[in-house]
């Protein structure tokens, strides 16, 4: 079945440093969604990308969808302690159900 992998699994950064997580799907995706889950919390929708090569920005967060629509990335500039959490990408399979990635857990040290 479709697999969605993310790297790295964990990332520890000093506050102010940048952070990037990469998402790779075994199949071409019609769109990709990103979610953030704080420790002990539930996933919260961040953004959806649909077009090949699309780039979207939300303040310090930059999301990119690959040209082949099989990979995506999330880059955070100048991390803050409020960025702590696990970031998941998710893409629909051929039946449109969301397949979540393995997640990248971000820890930010003040």
């Amino acid at each position: 079945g479709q697999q969605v992998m993310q790297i790295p699994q964990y990332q520890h950064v000093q506050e102010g440093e940048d952070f990037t997580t990469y998402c790779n799907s075994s199949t071409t995706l019609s769109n990709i969604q990103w979610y953030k889950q704080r420790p002990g919390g539930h996933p919260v929708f961040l953004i959806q990308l649909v077009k090949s090569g699309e780039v979207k920005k939300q303040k310090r967060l930059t999301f990119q969808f690959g040209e082949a629509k099989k990979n995506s990335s999330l880059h955070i500039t100048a991390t803050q302690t409020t960025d702590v959490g696990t970031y998941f990408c998710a893409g629909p399979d051929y039946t449109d159900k969301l397949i979540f990635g393995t997640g990248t857990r971000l820890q930010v040290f003040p």
Partner: protein
Amino acid sequence: GAGVSQSPRYKVAKRGQDVALRCDPISGHVSLFWYQQALGQGPEFLTYFQNEAQLDKSGLPSDRFFAERPEGSVSTLKIQRTQQEDSAVYLCASSLDGPLREQFFGPGTRLTVL
């Protein structure tokens, strides 16, 4: 209005017991999803409703798992004869219309089977 709510937030069951988990989606949301999340992993799809119709139940691990949404609003996930491997967080999500839209998640029910 209010977000997605789930009850109970925590449930401890003895192996072999039946449990029922409730989800109240955002009012007006047509689609409702159940996911299972094991510790340190991403949510895994269980089942999906469009109004009262269960359109996809391919993710349900066994016939011990059953979900319903009889009036197209509140949904219940029932697990019969619980086993230790059922221990996980069960997340409910809703979306305005369809699985390709933004999904709003509830706080989850943490199920522990002893």
